[in-house]
């Protein structure tokens, strides 16, 4: 059983789906969680389900829009709560848009939310004054869409491929400081976002998974492992969690 007692993690995109499940699990495992998303009411709803609400701090913030104040914002959080042991970046958007309909607005929105916000947040968290240094761990949620065929997901797949590449570079940069950086690529996970994306075809897609469909909790468990000292020799990896679909 992993324990994260005394650890402190920031979870971005914690208001729903994988982000919410990750924030709740880390909190249940003993960690203090700084839950970040745009909507305070949604974060509040997640906190109401937490095992240790006093250790579940909500910080409404828009990582795609509040760019200039990001570093100062995190500095203030750290001053209030203490140095971070790591973070999980779950913030993301996904829309099925055939290439013929892809425009700059769609590209910018997807890349800004899925990639640029991840880089900006990593930069702030990796500031030496904001994290505990050796033993700290960063996890980015990528997607199997970066590895496998998925028609109509050009911008999304490209953004998740960028996350995998980002992780490799950051892992090299951070290894001398003893900080680990990994990506986690979920297969299809029923969340409000994927249900909206796939609609009625979700059930048919789920049938393609040898172990059946996954849950946000399955992804959260792997994230918790990567954040824990048990994963101390793992960095720069993209861990696929897809119920065996990649085998087919």
């Amino acid at each position, binding site marked *: 059983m992993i324990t994260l007692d005394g650890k402190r993690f920031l979870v971005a995109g914690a208001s729903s789906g994988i982000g919410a499940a990750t924030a709740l699990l880390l909190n249940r495992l003993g960690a203090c969680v700084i839950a970040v998303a745009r909507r305070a009411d949604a974060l509040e709803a997640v906190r109401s389900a937490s095992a240790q609400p006093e250790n579940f701090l909500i910080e409404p913030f828009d990582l795609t829009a509040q760019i200039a104040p990001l*570093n100062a914002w995190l500095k203030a959080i750290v001053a209030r709560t203490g140095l971070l042991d790591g973070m999980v970046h779950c913030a993301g958007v996904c829309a099925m848009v055939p290439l013929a309909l892809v425009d700059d607005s769609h590209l910018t929105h997807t890349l800004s939310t899925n990639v640029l916000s991840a880089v900006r947040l990593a*930069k702030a968290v990796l*500031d*030496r*004054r904001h994290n505990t240094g050796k033993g700290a761990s960063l996890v980015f949620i990528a997607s199997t869409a970066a590895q496998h065929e998925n028609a109509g997901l050009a911008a999304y797949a490209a953004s998740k491929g960028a996350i995998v590449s980002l992780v490799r570079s950051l892992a090299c*940069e951070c290894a001398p400081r003893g900080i680990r950086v990994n990506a986690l690529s979920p297969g299809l996970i029923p969340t409000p976002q994927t249900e909206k994306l796939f609609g009625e075809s979700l059930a048919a897609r789920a049938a393609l998974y040898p172990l059946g469909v996954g849950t946000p909790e399955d992804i959260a468990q792997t994230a918790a492992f990567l954040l824990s000292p048990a994963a101390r020799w793992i960095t720069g990896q993209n861990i696929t969690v897809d119920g065996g679909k990649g085998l087919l």
Partner: protein
Amino acid sequence: MTRFGLVLVDRGICQKREPMEAGQGMTKQEFLSLFREALQVDREISCETVLNTLDEWDSLAKIVVRGMAETQLGKAPSLDALTACVTVNDVATLLGIPG
């Protein structure tokens, strides 16, 4: 401005401005403040600090300091020259900061 300079501006470590003559207008205190920001440390660093005693003084930190020098002073010392520095004061001297 090269990418090193842009990185520093983007990180909020430096303000973008026209390069000046090496060292012109920057005091030793201002240099120390920028040097600490570049290394992301809050603790005190003096001109006498021996660089090798700073955990933060690694190859990436040297690139950051070079970017800082480029942005603020219009001077881009080689990484070899930075590596040859023994104390913080050696870096200041390399960048033409007046004593």
